[in-house]
């Protein structure tokens, strides 16, 4: 028997376990899936937890529920990967697994300790993240008793997972404080190392306009140098200092420590990966999916979904000794919640930045791109159901995975 080993049973690992169990010859292949955490979190739901728009129990389910029959699931931390010897050592019982093919799907985590003073006195008192379940729930508790003051959000450095989530947080905060009737007592400040609200010119302008319209102040080119939780200030290297009552941080995002430990990562522990084939740059029998890669696409569930369609074809080609023909185009679709039951939608690829228009079909849409609409918001809410019931199970959408320019308007 040959072994197909998958490290990480989050969005990508689970999806691929389901696809592989259908496509690999089960007489010949054993599939093993490893994760240290028993619980699968629907991470897009973390955005809604602080504002009490979702009940906590809506965002998690047991991981085992999504493991297809016949796939072995091992609950353990991973100690070391030795790609030159085709073996992995788990923490539990120091179990050694020899593999024929390896898929890395270990995602990315936040590292507040990378920013001076961030996780000291004020951490989880008036400094919170919302990229973890614990962080989002702690912030929920804080916001309940918050009756006014300055709310500062900071993005420490790029890349971050779901790069639109911080914008959505600001838009939702505006709406939330309005609903509570205290918007006039709250200052909203968005600090980012980017030169505008988002990275790509057309969407940066449009998304920045939404910020301005909502009375949210943007401090661009803000490279955070540290936090002083005695004075409640956050500073930048160019000498700006901003006082906060509540600091919401998107700390440095890094790939799994085991990737770094095993000498397989870049400066941020992301794995150098071929952006078209999703094969590791260094090892032909190592594949990488999702947030763990260094490919220049968004670290988002939608990217995991689209790229899985490419990856499964290439893995099957490789085990059959054929050329890798499938090419991922960097397709990404993001819903951006903007408050008041509305959201915007962006759709882009390696080659084409987010453009206005209609998605997925020209003229009929039904989802308008880069424009606030209630219909888009329904799409975002439906995403939770789609995630649990379709995406994780590796069932293809009735939508083409390739990016299409049809329906989009070129902006001069």
């Amino acid at each position, binding site marked *: 028997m040959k072994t197909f080993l998958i490290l990480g049973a989050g969005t990508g690992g689970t999806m691929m376990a389901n696809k592989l169990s259908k496509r690999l010859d089960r007489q010949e292949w054993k599939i093993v899936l490893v994760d240290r955490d028993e619980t699968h979190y629907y991470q897009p739901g973390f955005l809604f937890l602080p504002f009490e728009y979702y009940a906590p129990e809506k965002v998690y389910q047991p991981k085992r529920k999504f493991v297809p029959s016949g796939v072995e699931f091992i609950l353990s931390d991973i100690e070391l990967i030795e790609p030159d010897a085709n073996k992995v050592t788990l923490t539990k019982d120091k179990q050694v697994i020899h593999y024929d093919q390896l898929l890395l799907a270990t995602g990315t985590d936040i590292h507040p300790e990378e920013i001076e003073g961030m996780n000291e006195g004020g951490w989880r008192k008036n400094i919170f993240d919302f990229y973890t379940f614990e962080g989002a729930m702690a912030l929920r508790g804080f916001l309940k008793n918050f009756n006014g003051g300055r709310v500062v959000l900071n993005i420490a*450095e*790029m*890349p971050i997972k779901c*790069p639109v989530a911080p914008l959505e947080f600001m838009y939702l905060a505006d709406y939330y404080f309005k609903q509570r009737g205290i918007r006039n007592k709250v200052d909203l400040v968005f600090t980012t190392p*980017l*030169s505008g609200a988002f*990275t*790509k010119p057309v969407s940066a302008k449009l998304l920045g306009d939404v910020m301005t319209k909502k009375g949210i102040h943007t401090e661009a*080119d803000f*490279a955070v*140098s540290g936090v002083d939780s005695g004075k409640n200030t956050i500073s930048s*290297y*160019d000498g700006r200092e901003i006082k906060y009552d509540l600091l919401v941080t998107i700390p440095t995002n890094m790939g799994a420590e085991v990737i770094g430990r095993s000498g397989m990562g870049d*400066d*941020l522990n992301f794995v150098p990966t071929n952006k078209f084939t999703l094969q590791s740059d260094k090892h032909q029998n190592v594949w990488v999916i999702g947030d763990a890669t260094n490919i*220049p*696409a*968004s670290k988002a569930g939608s990217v995991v979904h689209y790229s899985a369609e490419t990856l499964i074809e290439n893995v099957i080609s490789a085990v059959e000794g054929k050329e890798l023909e499938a090419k991922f185009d960097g397709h*990404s679709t993001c819903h951006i919640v903007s408050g008041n039951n509305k959201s915007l939608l962006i759709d*882009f690829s390696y080659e084409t930045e987010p453009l206005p228009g209609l998605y997925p079909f020209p003229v009929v849409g039904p989802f308008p791109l880069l424009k606030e609409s209630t219909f888009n918001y329904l799409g975002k809410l439906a995403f939770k159901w789609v995630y649990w019931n379709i995406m994780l199970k590796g069932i293809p959408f009735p939508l083409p995975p390739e990016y299409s320019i049809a329906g989009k308007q070129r902006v001069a």
Partner: protein
Amino acid sequence: MSVLDSVKFDADGYLEDPKVWTKEIAEAIAKREGVTLTERSWVVINYSRKEFETKGEAPTLRAITKNTDVDTKELYSLFPGGPGKLAAKVSGLHKPTGCI
């Protein structure tokens, strides 16, 4: 007459062809951008050029501070404003691609 007259720049002021870069060009770009290059600036420039030659693009700030003895604070004093962009410009590299 400046060494810059004979080379082409893109709309944002980055050298069109990183291969034509010389130390004189670096000095001239720095002057145009209003920064003085010191021995320490050259640690960053030399590292950036080396990275470009192996990887084909400008290094990130994190890579610079991790792989040289210049820390972020010093980087901001050597290349005020946006050190990532400014160091790339002076090193004759293309504009660093922002991540999405």
